[in-house]
């Protein structure tokens, strides 16, 4: 079901839509003012849980629950932090950038509420270095909010100092992994840390830290403004605790690729045909990647398998994957992940082998190289797929290819390993016949296309 919203996007494309004036004209900063002047920290986290905001960074962890992991009391004399993840580098993902550029004050206001709710006095926003405009807009918004007294020593007159700093990273994908981001923030090499300890125990500079995706934080003022329960109820998956609305992206082989704000509950088919204007050249769908390159590809013919009648997901049993509401749990039961919720469409005519090579090239290049299976395995995957495309491989090698992914799966320090292995396994399982054609010489790299018309 398509239910459009414009909480975050109402400022998009308007002249000076990113300014404090524009933001306040639409009711901005009311939520933060109310939270700081009328609510206690506990009330804020309790209310936040009701919003059922599932983390927008990929893993879909409930935001309110994460906030409540923060210690009640900061370690004696030590600070606690909010770290906002705006490293957005997952191929096929392009939502956070629009918020930073077009509605930066929602981020600032979200940071104020979140800091108060988790007991932090300082927030970092970790932005990829390439996003110059995003960085400028965030800094400008912080400056405006400071001048108004919404940030600083007494935001909204409350003696609860809040400061926000925009930090630009070196621009690597792995710095989006939350603990690598913290290392990078600290000036260290952007390598994921071992967990435990989790960031809420020892995060930035060893202090308790909440890491949230930028969109997660940006939607917080809306939830508090509406009332968190009411916010959640916008969603068709409210009962699955997947609430509210979010930015959906649709890209790849669609006529109108875009980012759009919708209540949770839209299906992939609606996103592709009604929002995206249909598949390029009115072709059939070869496959869809639901939320960034790390989420396993789905075939348009797949259906949901949820035979357990007691499961709340049973209602989707037997439904085509394109016709279920796009949510964290529905995509999990579909055998993939919602990820960043930006759907990439591959039309018939696309070469899945070339698509896999393209992805594996990315993972080979972006692996931090810390742990053996990911460092060596990602590069080996890429090498074999390239050989297959170049007609230099053999059936024997193809038959061993999944084994490389298997040896990465579950054996690495961070989820990058699974993010590499899972899509690789899905491409192999679902498009094996195409791989065979290259091995047998029935197709060559010259036949391989990523673009269609």
């Amino acid at each position, binding site marked *: 079901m398509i239910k459009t919203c414009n909480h975050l996007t109402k400022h998009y494309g308007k002249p000076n839509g990113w300014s404090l004036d524009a933001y306040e004209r639409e009711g901005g900063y009311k939520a933060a003012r109310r939270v700081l002047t009328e609510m206690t920290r506990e009330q804020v986290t309790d209310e936040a849980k009701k919003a059922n905001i599932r983390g927008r960074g990929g893993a879909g962890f409930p935001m309110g629950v994460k906030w409540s992991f923060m210690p009640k009391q900061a370690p004696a004399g030590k600070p606690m932090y909010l770290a906002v993840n705006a490293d957005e580098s997952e191929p096929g993902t392009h939502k956070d950038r629009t918020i930073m550029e077009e509605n930066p004050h929602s981020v600032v206001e979200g940071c104020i509420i979140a800091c108060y709710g988790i007991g932090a006095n300082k927030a970092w926003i970790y932005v990829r270095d390439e996003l110059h405009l995003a960085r400028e807009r965030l800094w400008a918004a912080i400056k405006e909010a400071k001048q108004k007294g919404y940030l600083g020593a007494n935001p909204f007159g409350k003696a609860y100092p809040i400061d926000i700093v925009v930090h630009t990273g070196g621009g*690597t994908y792995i710095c989006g992994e939350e603990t690598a981001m913290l290392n990078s923030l600290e000036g260290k090499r952007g390598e994921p840390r071992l967990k435990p300890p989790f960031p809420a125990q020892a995060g930035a500079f060893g202090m308790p830290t909440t890491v949230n995706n930028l969109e997660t934080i940006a939607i917080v003022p809306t939830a508090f403004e509406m009332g968190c329960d009411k916010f959640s109820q916008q969603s068709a998956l409210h009962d699955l605790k997947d609430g509210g609305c979010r930015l959906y992206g649709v890209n790849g082989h669609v006529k109108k690729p875009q980012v759009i704000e919708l209540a949770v509950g839209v299906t992939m088919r609606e996103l592709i045909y009604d929002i995206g204007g249909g598949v390029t050249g009115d072709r059939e769908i070869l496959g869809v990647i639901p939320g960034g390159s790390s989420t396993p590809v789905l075939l348009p013919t797949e259906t949901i398998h949820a035979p357990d009648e007691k499961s709340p997901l049973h209602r989707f049993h037997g439904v085509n994957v394109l016709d279920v509401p796009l949510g964290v749990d529905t995509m999990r039961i579909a055998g993939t992940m919602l990820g960043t919720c930006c759907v990439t469409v591959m039309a018939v005519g696309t070469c899945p082998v070339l698509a896999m090579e393209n992805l594996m090239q990315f993972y080979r290049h972006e692996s931090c190289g810390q742990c*053996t299976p990911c460092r060596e395995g990602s590069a080996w995957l890429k090498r074999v797929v390239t050989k297959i495309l170049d007609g230099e491989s053999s059936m024997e090698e193809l038959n061993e290819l999944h084994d490389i992914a298997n*040896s990465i799966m579950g054996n690495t320090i961070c989820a990058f390993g699974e993010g590499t292995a899972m899509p690789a396994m899905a491409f192999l399982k679902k498009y*094996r016949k195409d791989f065979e054609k290259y091995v047998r010489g029935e197709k060559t790299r010259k036949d391989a296309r990523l673009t269609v018309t």
Partner: protein
Amino acid sequence: MPSFKLDGKTIPFEPGESIIGAARKAGVEIPHYCWHPGLSAPANCRMCLVEIKPAAGQRPIQLDVLSLDPKTGEYKYQPKPKLQPACQYPAVDGQEVLSDSSTHVGDARKAVQELLLLNHPVDCPICDQSGECKLQDYWLEHQKTQKRMRDEPIHKPKAVVFGPTIVYDAERCVMCTRCIRFMEEVAKDPVLDMRERGNLNEISVAPGRQLDGNYTLMTEHVCPVGALTATDFRFKARVWFLRSVKSVCQGCATGCNAWLDYDPRTSSVYRYRPRENAEVNKFWMCDPGMLSYKRAHEGRVAEPRIAGKTTTVQRALESAKKHFDGVPRESIAIVFHARYSNEDNWALKELAITLLGTRMFYRSGGAPGTGDDILIHADKNSNTAGLNQLAPSARPFADLLADIKKGAVTHAIALGGATPGDPEADLAELRGLKSLVTISAHDGPLTKAAAVVLPATSWAEAGGTYTNAKGLRQISEKAIEPIGSSQPAWKVLAELGRVLGVEPSWSKLKDIRARLLAVEMPSQPDVSAQAE
């Protein structure tokens, strides 16, 4: 004490200990590259993955992997348990851990091995690590298959000079970061780091720096493979021809436990390697200490000398006797040496007191240097504490020089060559003696000033005990055969006694050890050190 089960075997542990650490103490090895008992655990090599059975009532964490039916080309998802690194995972009371007995663990180890060797040059014939390399050992234990990648491996820099002592080969490196962590955590000099990403990673030295200081050679020893090699040992020996004895470093008063590696075919010493001892040096040694193995061959007194001219032992002993003819025995000064074993110094004392009847005791030793708060002691003598215990009345070397000047000392018997002061100045003063008989392994002012020099074995050619600054008496074993005509100093002293007309009470090392234990040093020497 809490305990867990590893492949059915009960392993006790201290709370907070990792599975791998507790297993090691119990004598069970879980294969590993990156973990080192003396360093932090980055859990990056993934060789130590184990299967941990979920606690009662808990669901196992499972992951889907693919299996293929090659006949149909059909894949199927199959669950496998999530494995955990034993180096990072804390031991939990009552937990059941599967290592060698789990097929999933076996598969994971095999996979890690294959992946580590994927781009490895496998240039074992020209690699110094060959024979003591974890890649070789674990290939046999955990892989035993040919690697499936037949293509040209990735090439990376080779023979990169990291500094005066260490050479790096990026192609052989398994990126375990032990070297980085050693420099940061133990040497407190974070001069190494990793650069690049993915399988182009390599270890690099901080810009503007080289890998130098007093703790560089340890990086080679913590390196589980042949990526770091020591300039000093490069292309000198095949380790399987070398034999090792438990030795004690002679570099300073810390007395680090070491393996002294030598080639029995040529009776020559090749290197020192640290030997674990929790109370002394943990797992480490310093560079000057590790290079001090060279003293087994350098600066040695190999043959007896009379007035600087080489002679035979018999003639030298007769000449010594002549030098002391008519000299009242109680006026012969005795110079002990802090670089010689308790046994050697004891023999000298015994000769002096019971046989000669002199108590004119002085002491010598090498010059002090600088120390640090890691291992290195400012006292550069290996047995100062032992000497203090055996001959507390021995007066400082400066007093000896003063007494020579005054004419109060005219004749002396000395152990060792080195003196604590400026060698030239000390030599000039020592020349004031009418006669000096020196028993020494190494040349120094005391041998240069001597009328008669008798060659002694160094610590490498004879067993002995040395008491370190902490008061631990430690055994150092014999490695090579005596050089030239040298013999253990305690033996030479017995012969000297005999030509001076007295009958020594000791003829074997055993006798001296027993006497030391009974009277002077009533505790067993330390042999607690454990092999790594």
